[in-house]
């Protein structure tokens, strides 16, 4: 060993021998994966935006999304159902935060409890989406079929339904993957895998993914339901 090694002082974050961000590789990869996935959704939403911009008209979301399960005929509740869906998903993000927090405190019971809440939230969201898709399908909407008129009453192209089903479907697929990941995390927690490892970092990574899927929904929700 040389006496002159000051340039490689261990206090420097980027000097090697450790992670500059103080994270293990899995979390770093998750961040980069999320960036990648953000580009996937970004491409979808930009494709949607340009197509919509180039169209002469677009259906009014307040007219399209105004149904509610078990509501009597003729009762219109614009965007109420999707607001509930969104609320469920955001609450599931909160329970995910609580699960990650409990994991940091090595509190297995709380991790299990909050993971179960998160899974329930995810499944509830997917069920709502399934109902909404089914309802729209019954109204004649599907890929390649659009029963809704433009807001100005003119005939609409199929782009509205094409993009709606493709993008919400792709997002729903992400939620489904997230639910599966969370179920795996739950099983691993119950099997004491993380207790043995001495940390709940896996839950943190699953949490990052879950929050990302929620965040994407905020954009999808804005693009399809609000604008």
């Amino acid at each position: 060993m040389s006496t002159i090694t000051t340039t490689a002082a261990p206090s420097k974050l980027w000097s090697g021998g450790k992670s500059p961000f103080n994270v293990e590789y899995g979390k770093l990869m998750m961040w980069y994966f999320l960036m990648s996935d953000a580009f996937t959704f970004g491409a979808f939403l930009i494709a949607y935006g340009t197509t919509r911009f180039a169209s002469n008209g677009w259906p009014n979301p307040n007219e399209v999304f105004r149904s509610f399960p078990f509501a009597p005929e003729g009762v219109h509740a614009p965007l109420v159902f999707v607001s509930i869906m969104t609320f469920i998903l955001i609450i599931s993000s909160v329970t995910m935060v609580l699960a990650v927090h409990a994991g940091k405190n090595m509190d297995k019971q709380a991790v299990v409890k909050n993971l179960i809440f998160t899974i329930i939230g995810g499944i509830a969201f997917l069920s709502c989406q399934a109902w909404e898709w089914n309802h729209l399908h019954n109204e004649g909407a599907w890929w390649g079929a659009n029963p809704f008129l433009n807001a100005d009453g003119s005939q609409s192209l199929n782009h509205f339904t094409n993009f709606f089903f493709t993008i919400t479907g792709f997002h729903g697929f992400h939620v489904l993957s997230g639910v599966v990941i969370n179920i795996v995390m739950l099983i691993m927690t119950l099997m004491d895998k993380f207790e043995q490892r001495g940390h709940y970092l896996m839950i943190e990574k699953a949490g990052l993914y879950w929050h990302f899927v929620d965040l994407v929904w905020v954009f999808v929700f804005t693009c399809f339901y609000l604008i």
Partner: protein
Amino acid sequence: MSNEVVLDLHGSTSIAHDVHHGHDAHHEHHETFISKYVFSMDHKMIAKQFLITGMFWAVMGGLMSVLFRLQLGYPDSTFPWLEDILGKWAKGGHISAEAYYALVTTHGTVLVFFVLTAGLSGTFANFLIPLQVGARDMASPMMNMLSFWFFFLAGIVMLSSIFVETGPFSGGWTAYPPLSALGSASPGSKTGMDLWIVSMALFVVSSLLGGLNYIATVLNMRTKGMSMTRLPLTIWALFFTAVLGVLSFPVLFSGFILLIFDRNFGTSFYLSDIFVNGVGALPNEGGSAILYQHLFWFLGHPEVYIILLPAMGMVSEILSTNARKPIFGYMAMIGSMFAIAILAFLVWAHHMFVTGLNPFLGSIFVLLTLLIAVPSAIKVFNWLTTLWRGNIRFTPAMMFAIGFVSLFISGGLTGIWLGNSALDIHLHDTYFVIAHFHIVMGVASMFGMFAGIYHWFPKMYGRYLNNTLGYVHFWITITGAYLIFWPMHYEGLAGMPRRYYDYSIWESFKQFSDLNRFISTVAMIVFATQLLFLANFFYSIFKGRKLTTKNPWDSTTLEWTTPIKPGHGNWPGEIPEVYRWAYDYGKDGRDFISQTTPVGADESVH
């Protein structure tokens, strides 16, 4: 010191796979054939798997180019043996138009993605990143293995598409709709296109798994003392390559998903107002084929740099090592690669100047495109000044590295022509474009790959490649590359369009029939020379001259501090610590100083 402990927060955390590296090379004895050669998790073996699979695809893609060059060079001749190998695709010994387009398409797809993306960065990112940053293996060896097998699977699907009844996809490697979206558009648009798209989706997964690993390894697993500015330029290049891949392939993936819906589920994302002969008017309304082109080229342009950057990195390393001089402008090299990586995302529409793009928007893309000339020129001048007054060792690797610089200059200059939207109106989709991108991206990157193979072969297999064959390989390839592609500039300037099946029926292009025959002949000679290289490669794996020293090229970087045949885990005992940058050549009267040598008392720190 090793990279076992990467977290301060959780002192007990260790990267799981590092645990079993504690006992060094001995544990290889426990490995079975399957775990060592097939489902290997050793980055060095995975690199070799990528390389050899890439070679298979290079031969396939090259052979396809020979077949369609046969058509272009000898449009009036018949070759009965073609019918023997291609059957109905070459009735009477004459390649059919469908087969010609399928060959061109598959040649492009295979060379761009399977050879120059997976074969190039798959090989060298896997091989060099852990060895040069000082890590036992990739961050996740499991994902690394999956990355290769997804690539392998993509290859299997692509290969199978060649054998379906309606033939492989034939609408060009860019897969523009409507040819790619309508099964009724051409025979290749049927099952062949389905398989093409499945293959590409698998490839995107492979690229994502690989890219995440490369990034995490470079950032997280550098050995002690290996700061980012001490990394060899290969690592910087492979790092930027991985970032480009991780951020651009997903956009292509989105484009493909929309394409799948257009193909199979009655949507009109890319389709509008189409009449197909024999089918009639289609119901699709309001879609935009240009939308696909935007999504495609948002990947497609960064893809060019995904192909080129690894070659640039390796060439920098090889030039410096063999010129026995530090690389000139190390920080400028990093900065220019960073600039290229950023600009790569901002120039995609220069592929679309003649699509009806708003000319004002086009002018912005002209500006951004021409800006790339700045970092490119910085790199070229840095390479030249690295060579300047160097004590050059003309190894085959060095020859190919210098050849890369030559090709990059020649091909890069025509990029300035094509980057101008006004000139592009004349040159778009002509042989000028073919000449440009083959020289600057295709052949140049192949040269980078060859340079890398010749340079790191001793590290891969503990033996040397045959030098004489290496020189023969180099001289025929560089001469041939210029003889093939240089004349294409003239054809392109004369307006000869690309992707035509038979130019002999066009009065304006008849004058080029001799030139086309000449190009085809040289292409065949160059292809045969590549087989010579492959023979050298495989012969040398088993019978090449053995290494007697760990560091055959007197190099400074970490991979040459490992044993001649490193086991899984790379270094027996501890990972060496790094005290200096990678380019201490000819310093203080010493020929070279390894990165592991501590900085002496009277020596300036770099």
